């Protein structure tokens, strides 16, 4: 670990500091600092800032960036009206980690690609231009959608998958104190030629809260397929909300984890579902749309059929139609 300066922020302005890295729960950052995957010169600890409340009303909920994953998962509003989020949180990490990890920090988790976390290996995300050792290496846990020839990392968060399905927006306080909101679609960048740039956050930006509109009535699901029952990242996960009226799908929002460099959502898939009578053929069509551009890397080829099966099972459960 490289020596660093530690500053405790007492007001949001303190977080605006050139070259500084923000630390909240530290569950991911500290590991990466020990490995020297991340070597910040300055850490700004924001945990004293007033960003710990969950404020729900009839239109939605505003979740402070410092709300812990445990508290968020247990919140009665979240459990009742945003069940997919609560379930996704509880499907992630371990009890100890959830007690420490924050909402804002969870969104900014770094990939679990083992080539990213070993500094002896080339990695365009860690060391731009050095190459991608995961391509041609062991890539069982890596991406089949949204990857590029520079990077095939996956985003590890479960929480972010649920938030993507719930149309969450990230509230960002800019270096000048101006507040702006970004959808997760805008917030997360695909790797393209610059996998080191993962979000739209710039110098001095601070995530202050997450806004989630109240979902339309419907059934919630978070289904995570993993190598062991707990404390494993998703091979494939599906989260979302689906409502049925008069035997037809009235609305559907679905997001996917374990497949891509960011929580994945496909508008075309949802359009294909809405207004339709649910049946096996429809579910197949949805899976075809989701996976039309999927590309395996060898070890992770299985994710393509696994995502298909998992999506179809999720749709069966959401619609109650098993045939």
């Amino acid at each position: 670990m490289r020596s660093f300066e530690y500053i405790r922020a007492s007001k949001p302005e303190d977080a605006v500091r050139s070259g500084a890295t923000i630390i909240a729960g530290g569950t991911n950052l500290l590991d990466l600092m020990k490995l020297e995957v991340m070597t910040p010169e300055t850490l700004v600890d924001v945990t004293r800032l007033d960003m710990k409340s969950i404020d729900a009303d009839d239109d939605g909920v505003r979740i402070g960036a410092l709300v812990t994953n445990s508290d968020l998962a247990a919140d009665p509003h979240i459990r009742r009206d945003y069940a997919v989020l609560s379930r996704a949180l509880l499907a992630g990490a371990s009890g100890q980690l959830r007690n420490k990890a924050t909402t804002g920090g969870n969104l900014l988790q770094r990939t679990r690609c083992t080539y990213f976390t070993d500094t002896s290996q080339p990695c365009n995300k860690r060391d731009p231009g050095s190459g991608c050792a995961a391509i041609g290496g062991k890539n069982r846990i890596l991406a089949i959608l949204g990857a590029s020839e520079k990077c095939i990392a996956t985003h590890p968060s479960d929480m972010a998958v649920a938030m993507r399905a719930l149309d969450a927006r990230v509230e960002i306080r800019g270096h000048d104190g101006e507040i702006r909101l970004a959808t997760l679609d805008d917030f997360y960048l695909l790797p393209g030629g610059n996998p080191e740039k993962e979000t739209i956050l710039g110098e001095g930006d601070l995530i202050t809260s997450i806004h989630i509109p109240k979902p339309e009535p419907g059934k919630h699901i978070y289904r995570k397929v993993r190598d062991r029952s707990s404390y494993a990242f998703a091979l494939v996960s599906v989260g979302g909300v689906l409502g049925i009226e008069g035997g037809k799908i009235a609305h559907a929002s679905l997001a996917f984890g374990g497949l891509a460099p960011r929580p994945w959502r496909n508008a075309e898939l949802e359009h294909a579902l809405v207004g339709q009578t649910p049946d096996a053929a429809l579910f197949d069509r949805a899976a075809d749309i989701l996976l039309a551009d999927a590309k395996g890397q060898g070890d992770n080829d299985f994710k393509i059929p696994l995502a298909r099966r998992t999506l179809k099972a999720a749709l069966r459960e959401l619609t109650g139609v098993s045939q």
Partner: protein
Amino acid sequence: MTEHLKMDKVQPRMLDETGQGAITVPMDRPEGRLKVAGQATYAAEYKAENMAYGVLVRATITKGQVTSIDEGSVTSLPGVLGVFATGKMPRSPAQGTAGAAPIQPEGRVDYFGQPIAVIVAESFEQARHAASNLKIAYEAETAETDPETASEIDVPDGQLLDQGDIEAAMSDAAFTVDATYTTPPHNSAAMEPHASLAEWHGDNLVLHGAYQMLKFNREELADSLGIDPEKVRIHSPYVGGGFGGKLGISQEAIAAAVAARELKRPVRVVMARQQVFEMTMRRTESRQRVRLAADKDGKITGLAHEDRVSNLPEEGFSEPTAVASHFLYGGENRFFRQEVARIHRTTAGSVRAPGEAIGQLALECAMDELAEKTGIDPVQLRIQNIPEKHPESGLPFSSNSLAQCLTDGAERFGWSERKGVGKRREGEWFVGMGVASAARTNILMESRARVTLNPDGTALVETDMTDIGTGTYAILGQIAAEMLGLPTEKVTVELGDTNLPGASGSGGSWGAASAGSSVFLGAKAIRSKIAKSLGCAPEELRLKDGIATGANNRRPLAELMSGPISEEGHIEPGTTMEEFAQSGFGAHFCEVGVNAVTGEVRVRRMLAVFAAGRILNEKTARSQGHGGMIWGIGSALTEAIEHDPRDGRIVNHDFAEYHMPVHLDVPDLDVMFVEELDDHSNPLQSKGIGELGLSGAGAAVANAIYNACGVRVRDYPATPDKIFPHLPE
């Protein structure tokens, strides 16, 4: 005085006569409270005045020579004291019971991640930062890292056996199985990483370490440093798990000792988790071909078990994959052959139940396949093929209760409720049951202990034996208490110090029997002295709760003793190891659910029945069973080291991606013991139990998967991707 016994003949069942009631009972571990309260000091927690901190530096090539180490690249960093041990650094840890230095290659690199130096600094953080930034130049060579394509293959003579005619047996058989199974590399993955603190007092070295076999480790460390073993003291009272990973002296100890000598101050070196994976030992991957030939009644007529494993060049160890296949089942035509691929991956060594752990993943799965072909129930097929005597050597078994384990287990588990393949479905889940036999060779090793009885009715047991979390403190105290007629709380046990009499060490499941027998003998000698004081023959003496009775005399110990009586017990293996085939046996039963959509497997319940001679402590023995069963779940479902195909580097070198079972993966585990005393094993009539719990456990899981959904996974572990493609969408 020393009470010596070479185990050449059956010994009286003294522990049946003593009557104190200390043995077998499920006593809590006396040091357990210290451990859960954080008060047991582990190696990495010792501090010494003026201590410096060392961090090992790894090679980032697979094969070649270090041409230069640019010390200047780190010496200007704050706190750095220097780069040490480049000449003495061993390539690998010593293999178990080596008793001599491991290879010290002087800058030659044979696998990615091999330690090549230690950087020492004033603080741990400074040392770690410098270790990340030390510039090393190499002359790299191309390296073979794939056991399947390796050009250098050894065929060890010791693993070759060709009895009868296996080819003829296969062609004449009514039923045959010819299947190939593969198992991945494993890591011991003890909770405590490898850690050492070295302190020199003049020419004498004291090492606080985390080791399993101190008597051997002292020799290994001294030899590595080029000094007299008498000048080395290793202190290892608590070890946070071993599982074979701490059998031999490892690099951090030698590095700490060298750096401390040069700096003239204490140096502590603790491996990071990634280093434990890369630098210590892995269990080899294996490819195993098992052939079974059976007649129309399901009697096995031929059995062949061939395997390919790997290790580094010049490493003597090869996984004894087929060890239990030699005697679990009969059949007159037998063939065994091993190939050892010489490749450049992290050293292969003993990991929990070397041989049995992976050999039975293959053999017991093949038995399930034979059961299906013959249409005979898998429990019955096993029972009817248990040999009367060792099918190769012809030796009688010292004891063999496998049939009872299978029968009792089937009854208790509700085996008769097992349905046909794919016939039980609960919603999205296929549900099935599996069974496997367990066998783990029983071994007695030379061991010494000193037992002291005080007139106040307390006693002290001293030996350099280790407790690696298994319950050694408990059982050695129980044996002494039983023999001396004292309540167990009156006995203190001191372990883990090479200044004490040399023990067998913890490994090979021989620790309890070997160290326990030495304590038994020491206490037996004390009994003789007390009998003499009392004026009775030793066999007449009764000792209970501090009172001696015999020859119509009844006296408190204090009245019979003028001072403490101290006796050393010394056990050695003898002819009973040569005249009898000795093994613990058991049976595993497992029920799993397999998700029809995703292929995820969840173990629902497990039962193991063990026959391991006298059970010395029902609680710690049960815990050993639980541990083994959990290892079985891991090896069946989740655990696998992945090597990069290009350079052999271990890719998943931490607990985030090396998946051991977590709590939610482990259901209620049921363990039962069959009553058994083994008169040929040792004077306690016990057999090893630690590794028996793992042997066969994973195969029961795999067989349950097949029964549940009809997918036969022969490539362990059975992760979802190996199952769902074979299930209807």
